[in-house]
């Protein structure tokens, strides 16, 4: 088990190195020149060259990349080009805390609502409760946040003043309620759908019939025999969402005025602020890799059929 985790972790630096290289190359050879964006289209070419030289952007590609990697290893991800003088690490850390906190809350609500509803629907297969839940799920999956958000804001905030329309004041403030409600709909719907499908499949299995043939109470049959089998495959979705925790929703953060990483990165793209884009790409790659590993490790604990390899 430990060997397995170590082996997987050893791959991570190589992965990051390659992803970093690609992103770096795209930044350097791709469209848009950060210096021109910074100084304006009609900047004096000599001045631009000077700035470029100061920033080290006129060195050979591999030298620049090696330099970047070397500094990154020491925790220095460079300075933002847009916010001159601001270290990328510090700039992102602040935004990242907000995004991660917010996403964790959204995901927790999605799981807490989605899984029980999914089970409820499965246990009521093909009756009104099931149909109602399935209907909600379809709506939840197909309605885009962009459509729900304004309605929720108008209804809950503007019209009836029930909730603040967003903003950020930490996870224990009332401000978080509306964005959470709106954003949790999607994940909740995904969990309902998957839980229901898994549960229906498991309830048809021979071993559930064996459990009933033993004389077990229906509650025991569901909880001790069916549920665990139905929940195991959900870890995969869970892992994907976990990886997504660090990536802020660009649009949603803007709509609800949440000062998360999504906004920062959006602006960075506009400004060709490569140090920020680089750091963000590496962060997301790392998050997905670690989330994947975490899920694999979890599987080994919840599913006895998977052995340490």
């Amino acid at each position: 088990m430990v060997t397995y985790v170590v082996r997987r972790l050893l791959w991570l630096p190589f992965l990051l190195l390659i992803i970093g290289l690609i992103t770096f190359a795209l930044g350097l050879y791709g469209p848009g020149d950060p210096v021109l964006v910074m100084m304006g289209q009609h900047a004096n070419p000599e001045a631009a060259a000077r700035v470029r030289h100061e920033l080290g952007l006129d060195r050979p590609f591999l030298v620049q990349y090696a330099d970047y990697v070397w500094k990154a290893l020491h925790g220095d991800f460079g300075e933002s080009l847009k916010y001159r003088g601001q270290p990328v690490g510090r700039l992102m850390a602040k935004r990242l805390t907000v995004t991660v906190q917010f996403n964790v809350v959204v995901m927790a609500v999605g799981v807490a609502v989605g899984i029980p509803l999914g089970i409820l629907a499965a246990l009521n297969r093909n009756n009104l409760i099931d149909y109602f839940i399935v209907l909600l799920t379809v709506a939840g999956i197909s309605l885009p946040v962009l459509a729900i958000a304004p309605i929720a804001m108008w209804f809950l905030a503007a019209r009836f003043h029930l909730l603040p329309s967003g903003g950020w004041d930490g996870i224990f403030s009332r401000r978080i309620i509306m964005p959470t409600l709106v954003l949790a709909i999607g994940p909740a719907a995904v969990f309902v759908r998957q839980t229901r499908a898994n549960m229906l499949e498991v309830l048809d299995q021979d071993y559930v019939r064996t459990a009933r043939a033993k004389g077990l109470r229906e509650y025991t049959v569901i909880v001790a025999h069916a549920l665990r089998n139905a929940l195991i495959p959900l870890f995969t979705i869970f892992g994907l969402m976990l990886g997504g925790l660090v990536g802020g929703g660009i649009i949603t953060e803007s709509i609800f005025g949440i000062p998360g990483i999504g906004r920062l990165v959006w602006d960075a793209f506009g400004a060709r602020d490569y140090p920020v884009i680089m750091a963000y790409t590496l962060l997301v790659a790392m998050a997905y890799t670690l989330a994947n590993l975490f899920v694999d490790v979890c599987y080994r604990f919840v599913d006895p059929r998977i052995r340490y390899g």
Partner: protein
Amino acid sequence: MALLEIKGLKTRFFTEDGVVHAVNGISYDLEEGGTLGIVGESGCGKTVSVLSVMRLIPEPPGKIVGGEVLFEGRDILKMDPDDVRKVRGNRIAMVFQDPMTSLNPVLTIGRQIDEALELHMGMDKHQARQRTIELLETVGIAEAADRADDYPHQFSGGMRQRVMIAMALSCNPRVLIADEPTTALDVTIQAQIIELVKRLREDIGMAIVWITHDLGIIAGLAERVIVMYAGYIVERASVKDLYGDPRHPYTIGLLGSLPRLDETRKRRLFSMRGLPPDLIDLKPGCPFAPRCDYVIDRCWEETPPLEPVTLGHEIACWVDVKSSQPSKPAN
């Protein structure tokens, strides 16, 4: 009074394609300590008939639409769910066809046996585990104390079926229903399992309903045999009569397709033509008529009732095969 009396049991499945007439009014008795064989081709309602006895039919789409299942004089079909659960696994236990899928993959086999003991025998965890280990030893699992903590995937098919048997026998049931317990296993393992069940029958003295589509297995195991076809019982007899003097054309067909070791003359191995009917649109008349070599006009109009031909030997057939010639050549 027989231990288990089934009277006019009818089970249907209400599916999108139509109503599946899976069990069409079957009746039989099981005596204390007796062994009854149920044979028939696959799809003829054997499993559904015994699942109905335990009220384990998935509902919907299934429904028991008629009949009685008297166990020790009480109708299981009329019991409230709590009482049914006290019978299941405790008084009547079941071993299923596919040992690969019948055990829960995420629970240890020990746990899966313990829970029945805790439930029905009121044992605590420790007592239950002691008993589980004894049971596993009884069914021939080596190093039972260690293996109890293993998961189903760590056992072979034959071993899993032994575990299923240990589980079924854990609460000393009066009746063991074995639904094709050896069909999924290879021949040597099959023989071992049959020997095991015979030995346990001696020790525990439970009655057995043994389902199979293989007439060869039943001969050495049961006293009485029921032959099912399309959800009906078409012949019922002692093992001796059924093999020595089969009277229903279907049984004759089944026996004819069985290779025999004691055959002196070389006989052409014969297999029945045609397929069993679709249980969704069962036509009136004898369900076997389309495949029958002895068919007469009446067979197409009226379903024959199960009636005695000799003492303890009943068939559902309008024709006396002893005194008629096949109207169609056997092929």
